[in-house]
């Protein structure tokens, strides 16, 4: 078998493969540090039972759906109180309820969002309107 212009095609292929695998070998051995979520806000530390609205696993995977649901209930249906499975009542508000406990946005929200490669301040765009809690830097 004969390849026409092999002297150009083979080096070209090697360069092409090198370029498209560039991100892999450039980042080799440099694993991004896993997110460290901090739960040590003053309010959480004072809680006897450290329990969020839903169990931790559900919150981790489904907090966005919950927030979406809360938005619809408050803005569109006018309901403002959420009753958790344990009967505890919550004011359905990101800005007035969630951040009462999670008052450390940079150590809590941002940790995973940055790790997942979401652009801070644009995705998810909660804090372009909702006012983020004041944090001691």
């Amino acid at each position, binding site marked *: 078998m004969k390849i026409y212009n092999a002297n150009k095609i083979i080096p070209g292929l090697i360069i092409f493969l090198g370029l498209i695998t560039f991100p892999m070998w450039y980042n080799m051995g440099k694993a991004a540090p896993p997110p460290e979520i901090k739960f040590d806000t003053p309010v959480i530390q004072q809680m006897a039972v450290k329990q969020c609205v839903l169990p931790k696993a559900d919150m981790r995977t489904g907090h966005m759906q919950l927030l979406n649901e809360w*938005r619809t*209930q*408050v*803005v*569109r*249906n*006018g*309901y*403002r*109180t*959420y*009753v958790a*499975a344990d*009967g505890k009542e919550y004011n*359905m508000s990101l*800005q*007035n309820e969630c951040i009462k406990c999670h008052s450390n946005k940079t150590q809590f929200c941002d940790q995973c969002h940055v790790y997942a490669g979401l652009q801070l301040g644009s995705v998810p*765009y909660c804090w*372009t*309107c*909702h*006012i983020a809690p004041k944090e001691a830097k």
Partner: protein
Amino acid sequence: MDTNRRSFLKLGGLCALGLGALPVVDALGKSDLPQVMNNPQALVGKRWAMVVDMKKCWEKGKPGCKDCILACHVTHNVPDIGSIKEEVKWLWTEPFENAFPGQESQFLPTEVMEKPFMVLCNHCAQAPCVRVCPTQATFKRADGITMMDFHRCIGCRYCMAGCPYGARSFNWKDPRNFIKTELNMTFPTRERGVVEKCNFCDERLGVGKIPACVEACKDGCLHFGDLQDPNSEVRKILASHFTIRRKPELGTDPSVYYII
């Protein structure tokens, strides 16, 4: 398997019975705790309305009083952009000929011609903004409030074209840099590219408070209540005073009334 008509019908009936029982199973399986509920203190109404007593405002109010506007803007983090073209308005003033076009006549009292009129979103029963909104970001609530879901607004500004009262403002810039008052940490700001307007203080009604402007007016020129409730404050005032509404000829059925 040998199937005859009889066994087939039996099986079919059994299946239909099973399907019919599904809602019952669903209802029994649910916990008796409600998932969401209303705040027990929330003010409830069928159609919220406001009466603006301009006569009292001019007579009793100190000259240049802007208490209601200030209270509204502080409560809702309304920016002060500083240019007429890009300004954001929730509650503002207009001269008579702009507030009530077509109702001017030749020799009106000087105060009517010269004094400012408080104007805001009219929360129309037949709101044109709701009809034109392509995403249902603006919608009518059961209590008569023409409400906005800022999350859904795509900034097309159809509602601004539709509103005959100029009650809607577009955020041309990030409004955060233009909030001159102290930030209200319990209410969000808006972002660039969304439309905003008066929400009749839905967030305050939800926790049992009257609108901020009504509360702020020390001279009692603003009255708030349920138009459908014959014993409400607004109905009593409407029954005892002659009131007008803005551009009634358009058929939008506004919920804001004026005593002049």
